[in-house]
């Protein structure tokens, strides 16, 4: 069903950059940061492949550490469609033969990467939280498994060794303007497929909970949709956004773009304030890596308290407005 590559010949690390509407996704810079570390250990080149339409600032990828940026420039790449992307990326990899290929675990990356891996007859490890090089020079891909109960170290016996990495798992590579600009334009190998056509793209509102530094999240402890305004107030004072547990999405009180958890968004804000959320494992899966967790819940045995840095046992309908008032007061004093 697929051919596979000869293991001996390949060299180098290839980061596949992601762009959407001409803007480079920051996960690309994070991959370049980790990629640099691995490349130095193996004394190999670190290159980057970018597919997109006109006018993307590809040199940014050089500033962030890519030695060569291969820019496959064509308007067919302005719409994100896996089949056409896959055909072209696979042809590129077969020609350049990188030993390691890294892709961001964004929605598009998670959908595209398995197709590429299957076409190349190689393995793929999803959502790695760390990458290392072992004594034999092979890539060790580390990922959480079974609801984060353990970390599995995974090796791929074929080449390229491929992994996807979640956004915000690694720090971004520093921008260094002294790095040489080195962009090679590549013609697409394949035209757009007729098997799959994008009819329409509707920009979602800018609401992106994963970018918030502070999240005030509400759960079933919130009784009516209107009461979410209380959390909005607090979020406003703290310059944050309101998230919710799945219970509120299922009840039709909130949009799924605001949902935090296993089947929603994974967030890592500086501060996460959980209000009337019990702390089910599926909710924790989406927020437990927050820097500071604060919980307000009327039930002292709620599991959320076990992972909270600060907790208050009480009625959120009293606690939250009072908290907001206090913060406003302090603001006014300053």
């Amino acid at each position, binding site marked *: 069903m697929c051919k596979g590559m000869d293991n001996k010949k390949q060299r180098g690390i290839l980061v596949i950059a992601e762009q959407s509407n001409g803007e480079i996704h920051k996960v690309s810079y994070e991959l370049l940061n980790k990629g640099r570390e691995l490349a130095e250990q193996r004394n190999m080149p670190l290159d980057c492949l970018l597919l997109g339409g006109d006018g993307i600032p590809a040199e940014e990828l050089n500033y962030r550490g890519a030695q060569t940026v291969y820019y496959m420039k064509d308007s067919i790449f302005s719409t994100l469609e896996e089949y056409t992307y896959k055909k072209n990326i696979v042809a590129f990899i077969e020609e350049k033969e990188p030993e390691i290929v890294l892709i961001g675990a964004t929605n598009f990356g998670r*959908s595209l990467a398995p197709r590429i891996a*299957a076409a190349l007859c190689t393995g793929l490890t999803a959502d790695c939280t760390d990458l290392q090089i072992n004594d034999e020079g092979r890539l060790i891909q580390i990922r959480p498994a079974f*609801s*984060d*109960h353990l970390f599995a170290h995974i090796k791929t016996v074929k080449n390229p060794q491929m992994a996807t990495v979640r956004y915000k798992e690694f720090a971004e590579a520093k921008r260094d303007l002294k790095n040489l600009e080195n962009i090679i334009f590549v013609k697409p190998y394949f035209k757009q497929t007729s*098997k*799959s056509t994008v009819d329409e793209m*509707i920009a979602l509102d800018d609401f992106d909970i994963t970018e918030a530094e502070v999240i005030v999240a509400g759960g079933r402890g919130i009784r009516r949709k209107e009461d979410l305004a209380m959390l909005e107030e607090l979020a406003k004072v703290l310059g944050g956004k309101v998230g919710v547990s799945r219970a509120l999405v299922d009840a039709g009180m909130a949009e799924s773009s605001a949902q935090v958890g296993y089947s929603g968004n994974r967030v890592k804000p500086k501060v996460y304030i959980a209000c009337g959320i019990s702390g089910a494992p599926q909710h924790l899966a989406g927020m437990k890596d927050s*820097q500071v967790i604060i919980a307000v819940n009327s039930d002292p045995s709620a599991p959320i308290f076990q992972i909270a840095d600060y907790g208050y046992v009480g009625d959120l309908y009293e606690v939250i407005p009072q908290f907001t008032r206090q913060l406003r007061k302090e603001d006014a004093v300053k």
Partner: protein
Amino acid sequence: MNILVLVKEVPDMEKVKFDQEKGVVDRSSAEAEINPFDENALQAAVDQKEKEQKNVTVTVMTMGPQRAEKTLRDAYARGADKGVLLTDRKFGGSDTCATAKTLAAAIRKIGNFDLILCGEKSVDGDTAQVGAEVAEFLDIPHAYYVEEIRNLDHDSVQVTIENIGGDRQVRTMKLPALIGVTKNISRPKLPTVNRKLESLTIQVETITLQDLNGFMSEEECGFKGSPTKVSKIEIPKEVKKNNQVFREDFTAFLQSVTDVLTEKGIV
């Protein structure tokens, strides 16, 4: 119209016990169930059958041990027409690549599917890779994060993708095609008592490696056919949490929280 739904049997993740010392899941500690995300895929297929009033047949396929047959019966009770079980000891130890290859081989063998549905990911493996890999091995287009099937006719399917690169996307794919669905695509219904009883008597088709002769080789399946290998299991260290829970003393709580907010540069 033939719709195929790929499902996986998983342990009930809310009840399953975990052996911290051995680093394995104790599968006997919780009952196996159909992967929750696959319930949405199955319901989406059944919805098509009911909506279109066309000649839609829904087949459910799973790979696993003989007992996974129960999952297929459960799927029948929820409205599927047929069940196919891929089972063979040689399939054991498959990673996503080998799993997808085996599923693709069986799909080719049975032939004649127009649309293949799968859930967003499985709650135990959590990779979300198998669907797209199956599509690649069959060389058919796919879409992930599908929240709606807008239109399905004899040669194409139009879907809405929830979020890809910050956009909601409407896409048309020629059939056959594969779609991975989110939980928003359907509301899984409970099986009726009648279907439940009937499900106990249906014939489940079983496919072994031998049946796939000509579609895949022994080298391609199971542990041997898996390019990824687990080399080590590590138990994460407990993260130290401050874990201060206040009960009556609201002022003290407020002080602590204000301090940390200040420290983080937020207020």
